[in-house]
């Protein structure tokens, strides 16, 4: 069974891009267009990893992340945050704590800045799931 990755982004194009990219590299994907549906799907689908866009209407990626990390059922699921918000360096340092002031919430597994560096993104996934990429 390939690892199942959930993509949550309000832009359908970004969802299509990430789905195609990950599927081409041997991953299974599921997706949701916003945080409200996203939270429901995570509970139903129990993905191996979740990619969340930060800027979304209705419920932001940060609010969704907060809910995942405080829900005992799903808090162990690794989460990647993606945004054009700012560089990974700036985000990891101060921005995350500014956005999530609750210190009991751990930092996300990884932050990727849009447009994502495909090589780094896939490299990270492969390393995380510790297996060789079959290639497109």
């Amino acid at each position, binding site marked *: 069974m390939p690892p199942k990755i959930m993509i949550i982004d309000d*832009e*359908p*194009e*970004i969802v*299509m*891009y*990430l789905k*195609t*990219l990950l599927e*081409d590299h041997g991953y299974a994907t599921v997706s949701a267009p916003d945080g409200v549906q996203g939270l429901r799907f995570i509970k139903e689908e129990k993905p191996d990893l979740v990619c969340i866009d930060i*800027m979304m*209407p*209705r*419920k*932001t990626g940060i*609010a969704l992340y907060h809910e995942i990390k405080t829900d005992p059922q799903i808090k162990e699921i690794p989460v990647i945050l993606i945004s*054009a*918000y700012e560089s990974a360096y700036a985000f990891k340092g101060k921005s995350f704590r500014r956005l999530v002031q609750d210190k009991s919430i751990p930092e996300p597994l990884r932050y990727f*800045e*849009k*447009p*994502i560096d*495909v090589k780094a993104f896939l490299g990270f996934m492969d390393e995380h799931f510790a297996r060789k990429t079959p290639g*497109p």
Partner: protein
Amino acid sequence: MKKARPVVQWPRKAMFKQIPFSAAVIDRSFTIVEVNRQFEKEFGDWRGEKCLGLYKRRGNPNFRALASKTFKDGKTRVSSEERTDDQGNVRHYMVHVAPFRDGKGGIPYLIEMSFDISDRVSLEKEYRLLFDHVPCFVSVLDESFRIVDANEMFRRTFLREGAQYCYQMYKGSDKVCSNCPAVKVFKTKKTYTRLQVGLDKEGNRTHYMVTAAPFRIRGDRVDRVIEMAQNVSDIMDLREQIKRIEQEKLDAERFAAVGQTVAGLAHGVKNILMGLEGGIYVVNSGLSRGDTELLANGWNMLQSNIKKISTVVKEYLNFARGAEIKVEPVDPSRVAREVADLYRDAAQRSGIVLAAHIKDQIREAPLDFEGIHSCLANLVSNAVDACNMSDKKNKRITLTCTERNGTIVYEVKDNGTGMDYEVKKKLFTNFFTTKPSGQGTGLGLLVTRRIIHEHGGKVGFESAIGKGSLFRIELPRKRLPKLRKEALPEA
């Protein structure tokens, strides 16, 4: 028969004895021949003694010269003298020396009377001390603006050598100042206060607040004016400093607005880049998989992102072109009226009533007409969208223009969808839109805020989900940009 005049036996000697100040009679050999009771009380019985000894003791050895003159010319003389009494206190006396005539042209005696004026003298000294120690500049001028009296602080600060007139002392000038308050006091007998800039005797610029008031009135005119001035240089410096800080704050706010706008733009551009890279990837993937549907999806991604580029670039150029606002005298209500007219029909077609509450008598203000117009148009257009997304029956937008306490206020209120906390938080800080894909670039509010900040104003809002939103533009007149000279109407 003529009635006999009653003869009054004046108890002359007794009367002399009881005069309530000290009196002595001196003969031509300067011998004291008679003293009254008060004299005796103060100095003892000096009858038969030469007056010299007494007056030496009283500390007035010149008395004899005074007496000689009066014996010679018969004129009354007055002098003041001081002496130390038995308790060691200095007492002040007003001494009168008057001739005592014998009726045949001779002056056999002088009568000397001394009044104790110590209380008055000490009061005068106290007043003088007070006058000198008042911690502001006090001076008294006559009608030719000559300073006839001045307190210690005035003398220390302004008294320069050779100067006599107030304008010489206060300003080192050689003529009466154009806005002199004393001139008005002499004319109207009223009190006037003015802010003046002078030069102290070291040549330092001094700001002072001067109040001039009538001091002495002779007949129906004022012939002395008192001027009291307070050094306000520190306050003026502080005022300058506050003004400079205000300006710096305004500049900083403007820079911050530009910075946030640039950050917002960067965010938008990064999203488009991701869309383009994604499009290329999906096209390639479609080709290699031989999946025409995926290929078509990728192609659509490319097309829609190229369209986004075009929209963003146009709006960005719009934004960049407006980077420097051009202000001219503008009727603030005219902008609101034009925007209301522009959107009324379109709103009506969507079943929205657009009402305008525009106050007529608002003074012209230095505004960028196009800029404010596009801000209001943006807010009204957002309100139309918010109403369109709502399923209410009576959709309504109100555009208000008024002035409150020197601040021009525009308000755009709608009863549309309203905004939740997350949307509100991001409203101005990010390149953010809630509108369906392709309908908004998220630049509108950024541009609005930038233009309003350039005017020194602010944009605020109140919103409740399901109830609607209110956007408010506030433009304080004192923070508005200055009119450029060429923009001023011809005189």
